């Protein structure tokens, strides 16, 4: 689900980080508030959300892990509680006789390539819209278009344009080139990368822009006084400011690419051509078209572990932010 919400998670460095860190900021009002809140905390407000998340996230998560160790197909699905326990056989099958390893490779390489291309694009866009000029608001709005358009719309549109007789091939033929197939065969992988890049670079742009805005005017003045050439100024003065935001963007964008189901699904349909059989598609097809539910659950658990690595780094980075955030 997180795949469709592709925005930076505010990791916060807010004024109230003192409150967040709790015991860190003991002022008289804190003690008084605490005394009051001990008696009269409306903790029941947490119940509705907690209830929903337990029913629709935590329990299914546990069910998913359980399903990965039982023999579950379309016949045993109705009685899934009493399906046969088969230990790690689903995992063995996933690793040895399914497309899992290939899909992991496809997903990871696709995600990393997409991120590596979008970062320079996003940073360049942030750099050119840093200074106010007439029409800048328009340019900024244009830059946001791919980010704003729903993924399924982006995918439908590119799918239409990249048809064998679509506009892309017609244009290429007019220019004397042979287009070939974009939605099938070996080119499909690069089609996926291209469309993902087209749709995802404004995300980097937004994060880089917020990084640029943290650069004080004095810094610009100082480097102007030193007579820094623009390239040196960017390289040695400005880019260090972007290191934090861009690393965060790298992590989040890569996670989003790996989790992206909508784009490959709408672009290529399911089952997807083998060159774009990325992890989310594989898991989806294995359960809802091949009806190998147990096997699919095992694949899903493996992909969760894969996701957990960057996610863990991200959560640690955020935790640091909360504690350092006292600066306002």
């Amino acid at each position: 689900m997180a795949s469709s919400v592709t925005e930076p998670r505010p990791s916060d460095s807010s004024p109230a980080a003192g409150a967040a860190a709790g015991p860190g900021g003991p002022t008289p009002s804190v003690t008084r508030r605490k005394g009051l809140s001990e008696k009269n905390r409306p903790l029941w407000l947490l119940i509705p959300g907690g209830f929903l998340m337990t029913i629709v996230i935590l329990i299914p998560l546990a069910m998913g892990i359980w399903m990965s160790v039982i023999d579950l197909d379309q016949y045993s699905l109705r009685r899934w509680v009493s399906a046969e326990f088969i230990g790690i056989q689903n995992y063995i099958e996933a690793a040895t006789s399914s497309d899992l390893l290939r899909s992991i490779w496809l997903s990871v390489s696709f995600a990393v390539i997409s991120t590596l291309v979008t970062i320079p694009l996003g940073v360049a866009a942030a750099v050119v819209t840093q200074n106010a000029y007439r029409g800048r608001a328009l340019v900024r709005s244009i830059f946001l278009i791919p980010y704003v358009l729903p993924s399924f719309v982006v995918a439908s549109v590119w799918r239409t344009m990249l048809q064998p007789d679509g506009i892309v091939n017609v244009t290429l033929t007019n220019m004397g080139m042979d287009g070939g197939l974009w939605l099938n065969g070996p080119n499909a992988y690069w089609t996926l990368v291209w469309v993902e890049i087209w749709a995802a670079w404004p995300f980097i742009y937004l994060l880089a822009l917020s990084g640029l805005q943290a650069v004080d005017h004095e810094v610009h003045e100082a480097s102007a006084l030193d007579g820094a050439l623009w390239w040196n100024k960017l390289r040695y003065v400005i880019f260090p400011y972007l290191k934090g935001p861009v690393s965060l963007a790298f992590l989040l964008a890569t996670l989003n690419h790996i989790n992206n189901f909508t784009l490959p699904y709408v672009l290529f349909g399911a089952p997807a051509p083998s060159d774009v059989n990325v992890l989310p598609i594989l898991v989806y097809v294995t359960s809802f078209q091949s009806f190998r539910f147990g096997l699919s659950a095992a694949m899903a658990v493996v992909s969760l572990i894969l996701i957990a690595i960057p996610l863990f780094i991200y959560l640690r980075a955020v935790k640091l932010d909360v504690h350092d955030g006292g600066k306002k």
Partner: protein
Amino acid sequence: MSIDAANPIEKQAKQPIRRDAALEVTRLMPRPLLIVVTVLLCALVLTPILYIFLASLNTDVGVASGEFWPSSFSLDSYSKIWDSVGLAKAIGNSLIVSGATAVVSALMAIGTAYVLVRFEFRGRLTVLRGLLGLQSIPGTLMLLPVFVLFSSAGTYLGVTVIGTLWGLFIAYLTFALPFSTWVMVTYLRGLPRELEEAARIDGASNLGILFRIIIPLSWPGIIVSAIFAFLLGWNDVLFASVFTRPDTHTAAVALQVFASAVEGGAIPVYSQMMAASLVCAVPVVVLYFMFQKYLVGGLTAGGVK
């Protein structure tokens, strides 16, 4: 600056010159390069967008024969899609589910966030970290177990969930909550405590404070979290493709089904495809540009500084 001092006669022109000088200081690239980069990026974005517009105003035959510029403009595609795609019903479904998700999740998020920000209790940090972690759980992992759980509700409780909009709503609401709550948490942290304390001294209850003080002060945060919940529902294909029947298809699924059907046909109706895509994008684009100020601020607030 020294230019100003050297030309005391041109005092009137002082302001513009100074502004230019300030611009020169913060400029990060030489002007020509800046223009080239801007134009290239705009072309990258606008070329496909322009094509969508033109194709949607073309005829199906015109688009199929590979015209970029239509030989005749018509709005036919826009009137056909309501029948051929079933777009009216689908957009209605999407609006209901996403709208309900937006409103309910924003309400729940603000209550939860209020407790998380203003009160101390055991496990608070765990909940906060959980909110972040849950946002990144892949939908594909949740789809099967949630599907089985919802089907079981039919088998054991006699409540049909799969195929109805309720199932989608509950799923979207739950998946929207972690992010909505997180947005509200970051927003409420920025609100001063003094007003609440004053109200408390005046005898206001927790709920009174929530409704009379927190909510009226938090509109920007509420809007951001509601819009993201709306987008989550509107943009989802994964859950909608499994949880809906033809009469409960959302816009995303209807468009996808139409696309697959179209390619089997004798004459591909690409023009209708483009018109339908545009219509599906409109509500989202309108929301974004209406609330752009809040959204971009909400996105980047605290995000990386």
